[in-house]
């Protein structure tokens, strides 16, 4: 028989507790969770229709134009070449699904995360309460999200987007909060001295000055979304995770390799584009 100090049998039945909790949530609140799912589903389906519906040549043209406007002609060339290559590799449709998922997830992250970050910047207490939650969201391995998400939201692309939202939200909250708190005290004082209300101060001074930091947060959120979207293939989400996952299952190293390459290429495009958002071109 194993002794106490072997630590073999769990004396704290944490496993059971978690299971009971999640089961209880599923049993009692599934409909509420379906309610959360609804807007995500709407946006995701809309995005998917958009990205898949637009002719590849038009899509490449639009993204190239955006790259040219935001960064410059080198980036435009790189974007065009990358997308073209992805198409030649036969990964176009998967890529579009992935982009639709990333865009949807990031839209929700920004819509929820930026206001939360602003709130956190205004209240030390709120920030203190939020911090452990964000730490947990960020340090929990991506795979661990998948089980409860599947139980609450079932499988598929939409469930994958929801897992992605949870996983990718922390940086935008953190950096919005940080960016606003980093605005020099003297500027905050100056705006108060001239009779600015809190909302005027936020709108005219703190948020504009925090923009580069908020954009850095957005960039991190986008990159995290991309990595999670791929993992979400495990729970039946579409996109570039699918070839990787299939290749892994059937040991088709070529297929997995092509999927992986496409992910890396898309990541590079997204990273550079969104980094450019944070550092506007000098006038």
């Amino acid at each position, binding site marked *: 028989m194993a002794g106490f100090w072997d630590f073999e049998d769990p004396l704290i039945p944490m496993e059971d507790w978690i299971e009971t909790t999640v089961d209880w949530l599923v049993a009692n609140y599934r409909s509420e969770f379906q309610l959360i799912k609804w807007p995500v589903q709407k946006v995701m389906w809309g995005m998917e229709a958009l990205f898949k519906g637009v002719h590849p040549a038009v899509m490449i043209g639009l993204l190239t134009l955006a790259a040219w406007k935001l960064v410059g002609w080198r980036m435009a060339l790189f974007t065009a070449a990358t997308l073209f290559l992805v198409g030649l590799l036969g990964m176009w449709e998967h890529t579009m699904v992935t982009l639709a998922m990333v865009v949807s997830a990031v839209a929700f992250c920004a819509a929820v995360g930026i206001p939360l970050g602003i709130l956190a910047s205004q209240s030390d207490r709120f920030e203190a309460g939020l911090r452990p939650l964000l730490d947990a969201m960020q340090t929990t391995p991506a795979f661990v999200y998948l089980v409860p998400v599947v139980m609450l939201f079932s499988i598929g692309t939409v469930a994958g987007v929801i897992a992605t939202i949870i996983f990718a939200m922390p940086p935008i909250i953190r950096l919005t909060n940080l960016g606003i708190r980093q605005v*020099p005290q*003297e*500027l905050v*004082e*100056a*705006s*108060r*001295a*001239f*009779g*600015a*209300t809190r909302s*005027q101060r936020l709108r*005219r*001074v703190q948020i*504009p*000055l925090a923009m580069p930091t908020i954009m850095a947060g957005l960039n991190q959120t986008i990159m995290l979304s991309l990595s999670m979207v791929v993992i979400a293939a495990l729970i039946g989400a579409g996109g570039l995770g699918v070839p990787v996952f299939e290749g892994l299952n059937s040991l088709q190293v070529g297929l997995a390799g092509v999927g992986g390459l496409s992910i890396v290429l898309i990541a590079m495009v997204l990273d550079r584009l969104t980094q450019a958002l944070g550092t506007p071109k000098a006038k």
Partner: protein
Amino acid sequence: MADKEKIVVKNLYKIFGHHPARAFPLLKKGKTKEEIHAELGLTIGVQDANFSIPEGEIFVIMGLSGSGKSTLVRMFNRLIQPTRGQVLVDGRDIVSMGKAELIKLLRSDMSMVFQSFALMPHMTVLQNAAFGLETAGMPKKERELRALDALEQVGLKPYADSMPRELSGGMQQRVGLARGLAVDPSILLMDEAFSALDPLIRTEMQDELLRLQSEHQRTVVFISHDLDEAMRIGDRIAIMESGRIVQIGTPDEILQDPADEYVKAFFRGVDPTNVLSAGDIARKTQVTAIRHKGEGPRAVLERLNREDRPYAYVLDQKKVYQGIVSVDSLKSVIKDGGEPRFADAFLPGADPVDAAAPLQDLIPLLTAAPWPLPVVDEAGRYLGAISKNIFLKALYRADMPEETTGENPPEANG
């Protein structure tokens, strides 16, 4: 100048820390700032300030770093919430005022200029100048017109569309000033507004302020570290130490009758049996003109203009002091026609002081004379001159060491 009291401060306290009221019993017992900090961990920012500022006055607050100057002034616009007491502006108490009323006051009648300029880096010069009007909700067209007007007052209209970072420090502070003026306040708070500027620009800004003041009398509360600046622009000066106001008076009053050791340390040195004499501190920083054929009044006038100095000290070939001429007096003798002579341009009353004169004797002379005092030896030879600034600095250096250990010199920035 009207006699109306613009700002009245009554029993005003600021104590930093948790549960600040705990400090009052100790203050009553006469405990010092340090003792209270050691005992309760509370910092006395300002204690029991009582004074009033009449309308249109330039009121300068001086004191060593940490003496509570900024805290005091920031309670006037409630950037810092007072712990106790009243600040009455036109009879209305700022401290108990509701938020909406306070905001209204800040948008229209009281503005602030900061040491670090505190311009919004993402806004143009014009937008910065219009900031106070924008918060007040004035329509764009109208506020830009008024901001342009304010920029014009400080000579920066051509830079309206520049970004602040493209301007020099002096120009940035002009924008800060324009931002303050644009709301057309009757009270202007200036927290070491010119301290970050180099000396020449600083003097220029002081002149600018005095000029603006002559056009439109505002009540100006001006914090300064610089004795010369305080004497130059202040109608009255308040000296602060450890959160208390230890003396208030005109520059001359304070110079002649310092209230205590601390003020003496500021204004004339602590040791009355000072061993220094006029000759020890005279400096050859003034323009001198030797009376000989080569350099006549015209040449000296030109030199003064070129070097942008107001006075020249005229000596003979043996360096014996003759008199002082000014730009204006030179101009008038030249204009009178004929061959101009220095003797006709000498300013009346510019008597030299003896090198052996004790420094105390110089105080009335210094406050009376607009020019630096010329100093001569027994033979009447010019040794140099003593400006107010040289005087104060010299005395200060000579007397500080034992008396106020551990403090920073008054003119050092904190």
